[in-house]
């Protein structure tokens, strides 16, 4: 067990190191090492899953990494259902994307660097998943930030890519500041950073945080906001699409951005604490979960809106990712972590598939990303077309496909708990179908809109094989009972105070065959299921009207102002540029001015002048005349001897 865990965690970094040191000049060997190792980690994960079937979870293996005073940090593995699911997603999707990358990036001269970075990513992501304490999560959290930085800026000679990488890293850092402070608060209130101990402590004494509970939760949430690109810090994710498409699929759709949701699910005990504010701030009544739900809902809606008017295929998908992440975060905010994790898993499959499909199209069209220059691909690229269709339907939430189930749980819960959030969830579902329909109709269906799309050809097996596998996963992920697998993880813990409503009151009542599973949403919350299907149909229908065989975007010509705002992403980038960046720039300018002119110029200048003046004055005593010197010398002796004699 230990060996397997160590293998899963450290094989990828071993691959990165061996690529860096030995095979930097041989891209194909590097690719081979990296792919092999990611597949091995996937196999090891399967073995781990099989092994844990018979054991009681969670299993915790702890080594001390650092211990000073009462601060103790572990290198610890926490294996429970949550981490197993996430591990499965990461290694599974990860190894498929490794394979796909070989086809997508095949001719790039720095392929070795690419695979080394990808391996670092796998290492860090697995680290997050397996971590048993907050600081270890933070460490790997930073490391995924690094690998994301390296991969977004992979084509570093391109200025926009380098800038996007920098932006991503900095946005993440802003979130991480809060995250680290939150970790410090957790440590100082509870004295431990291990998840297991934290939930035990909180179950015995929910008031352990006393008045700091909500602040701690909000600070930890900052990390999530940064990593999962939620509302105030969402600006980096669309720019991150400058990276290679497989990277967008793996890091910026399926796994890394979902790490925020994973963290919310992991530390749910802390987030679920009821509102408690320190004195002076107690007029703020809301709890962490309220904030989480609001941010999630807002992000979901906003991103879906922006996606409606984007033209770059990857950017549409990026905003779609934002929107879906918003769903997941909202689910957590509704104290419903299982649904969030469920949606995370299914979303990982179909969103990765969407990105890989987009990548396939991009390769076939020689790096054309504008959807208005695509079109008519269904005949020319059949595999890509069909798999992309499946993924689109899954994302929209068409019943038998996986996206339907996970999304429906969230919508149902939202409607049940809060009418506003429910409405937002439904509107977002409608918008999702609309923009995905737009994307699909414009880029795949209808006539070819440019020469490149006319000459498009289906890609080789190495690209299509992962597509097919992911398509299968996207179809069936809804039936394999991910939700019921996760249930024991939470029911075993003290979530009584969170008022969790779940489709199944207990695991025994979970539907036991696929048909029951299929109809379960209609049985459990028929209203929600029907409403969301209606929203999907409405969205699909509208997009069909607007975009089937359309020459140009009707919306942007009809609603010019709205369209302009949406196209420019509601001017968030400009806002930040003119506020935060401006402020930082001016502060730096002031400090530099003080240092250069006030400290370096005036103060040192004044001291220099004073010393200089004294020196000028004193040098008059140096007349050059020996007799003067003698006189002064003798005077000195007189004074000294007088002092010595009369003391």
């Amino acid at each position, binding site marked *: 067990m230990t060996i397997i865990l160590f293998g899963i965690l450290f094989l990828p970094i071993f691959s990165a190191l061996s690529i860096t040191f030995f095979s930097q000049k041989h891209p194909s060997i590097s690719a081979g090492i990296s792919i092999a190792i990611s597949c091995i980690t996937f196999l090891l994960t399967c073995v781990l899953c099989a092994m844990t079937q018979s054991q009681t979870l969670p299993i915790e293996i702890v080594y001390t990494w650092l211990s000073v005073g009462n601060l103790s940090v572990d290198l610890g593995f926490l294996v429970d259902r949550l981490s197993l699911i996430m591990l499965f997603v990461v290694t599974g999707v990860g190894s498929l994307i490794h394979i796909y990358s070989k086809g997508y990036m095949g001719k790039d001269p720095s392929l070795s660097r690419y695979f080394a970075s990808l391996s670092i990513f796998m290492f860090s992501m697995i680290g997050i998943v397996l971590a048993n304490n907050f600081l270890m999560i933070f460490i790997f959290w930073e490391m995924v930030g690094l690998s994301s930085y390296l991969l977004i800026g992979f084509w570093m000679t391109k200025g926009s890519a380098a800038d996007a990488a920098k932006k991503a890293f900095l946005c993440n850092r802003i979130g991480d500041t809060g995250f680290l402070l939150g970790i410090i608060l957790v440590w100082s209130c509870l004295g431990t950073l291990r998840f297991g101990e934290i939930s035990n402590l909180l179950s015995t004494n929910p008031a352990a945080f006393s008045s700091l509970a909500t602040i701690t939760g909000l600070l930890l949430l900052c990390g999530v906001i940064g990593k999962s690109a939620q509302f105030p810090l969402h600006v980096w994710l669309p720019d991150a699409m400058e990276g290679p498409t497989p990277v967008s699929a793996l890091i910026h759709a399926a796994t890394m951005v979902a790490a925020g949701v994973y963290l919310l699910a992991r530390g749910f005990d802390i987030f679920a604490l009821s509102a408690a504010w320190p004195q002076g701030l107690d007029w703020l009544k809301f709890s962490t979960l309220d904030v989480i739900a609001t941010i999630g809902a807002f992000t979901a809606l906003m991103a879906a809106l922006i996606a409606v008017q984007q033209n770059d295929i990857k950017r549409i998908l990026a905003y779609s990712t934002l929107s879906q992440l918003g769903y997941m975060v909202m689910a957590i905010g509704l104290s419903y972590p299982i649904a969030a994790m469920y949606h995370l898993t299914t979303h990982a499959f179909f969103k990765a598939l969407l990105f890989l499909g987009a990548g396939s199209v991009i390769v076939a069209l020689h790096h054309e990303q504008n959807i208005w220059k695509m079109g008519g691909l269904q005949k020319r690229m059949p595999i890509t077309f069909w798999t992309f269709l499946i993924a689109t339907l899954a994302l929209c939430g068409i019943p038998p496909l996986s996206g339907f189930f996970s999304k429906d749980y969230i919508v149902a819960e939202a409607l049940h708990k809060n009418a506003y959030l429910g409405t937002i969830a439904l509107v977002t579902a409608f918008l999702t179908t609309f923009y995905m329909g737009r994307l699909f109709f414009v880029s795949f269906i209808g006539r070819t809109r440019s020469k490149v799309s006319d000459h498009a050809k289906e890609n080789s097996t190495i690209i299509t094989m992962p597509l097919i596998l992911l398509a299968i996963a996207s179809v069936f992920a809804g039936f394999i009972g991910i939700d019921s697998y996760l249930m024991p993880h939470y029911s075993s813990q003290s979530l009584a105070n969170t008022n969790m409503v779940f489709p199944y009151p207990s695991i025994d009542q979970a539907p036991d065959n696929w048909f029951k599973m299929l109809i379960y949403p209609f049985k459990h919350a028929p209203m929600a299921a029907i409403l969301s299907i209606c929203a999907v149909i409405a969205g699909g229908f509208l997009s069909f009207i607007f975009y089937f065989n359309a020459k140009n975007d009707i919306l942007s010509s009809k609603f010019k102002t709205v369209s302009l705002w949406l196209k420019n992403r509601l001017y968030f980038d400009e806002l930040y540029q003119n506020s935060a960046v401006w402020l930082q720039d001016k502060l730096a300018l002031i400090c530099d001015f003080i240092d250069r002119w006030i400290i370096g110029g005036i103060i040192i200048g004044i001291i220099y002048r004073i010393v200089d003046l004294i020196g000028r004055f004193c*040098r008059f005593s*140096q*007349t*050059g*005349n*020996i*007799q003067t010197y*003698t*006189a002064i010398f*003798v005077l000195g002796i007189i004074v000294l001897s007088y002092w010595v004699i009369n003391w």
Partner: protein
Amino acid sequence: MIATIETYLTIGLGHYLTVSVILFCLGLLGIMTRRNILVVYMSLELMLNAANLALIAFSRFNQNLDGQIMVMMVVTVAAAEVAVGLALIVSLARHKLPIWIDNLNKLKY
């Protein structure tokens, strides 16, 4: 009264030291006032000799010869010093450079 006369007749360390100090002060005066570099040198020699007198007197009244050895050293150093110093003065004179103290004031700011 008798004892007072006796003190004048018994020549002790103090007498010699007084002479030595007076000579030393005279030499000092010469160094500080005279402008001819040669006379300054002579005044210097006067001071050295005043010191020599004191050393010899110490040697005598302390009943050991170390002071006299010291005088030997002083004399030797003085000889060397006079030789080098006069050579310098001669050299200055030969290059038609000023030899007056007031003019030898280049060593300043």
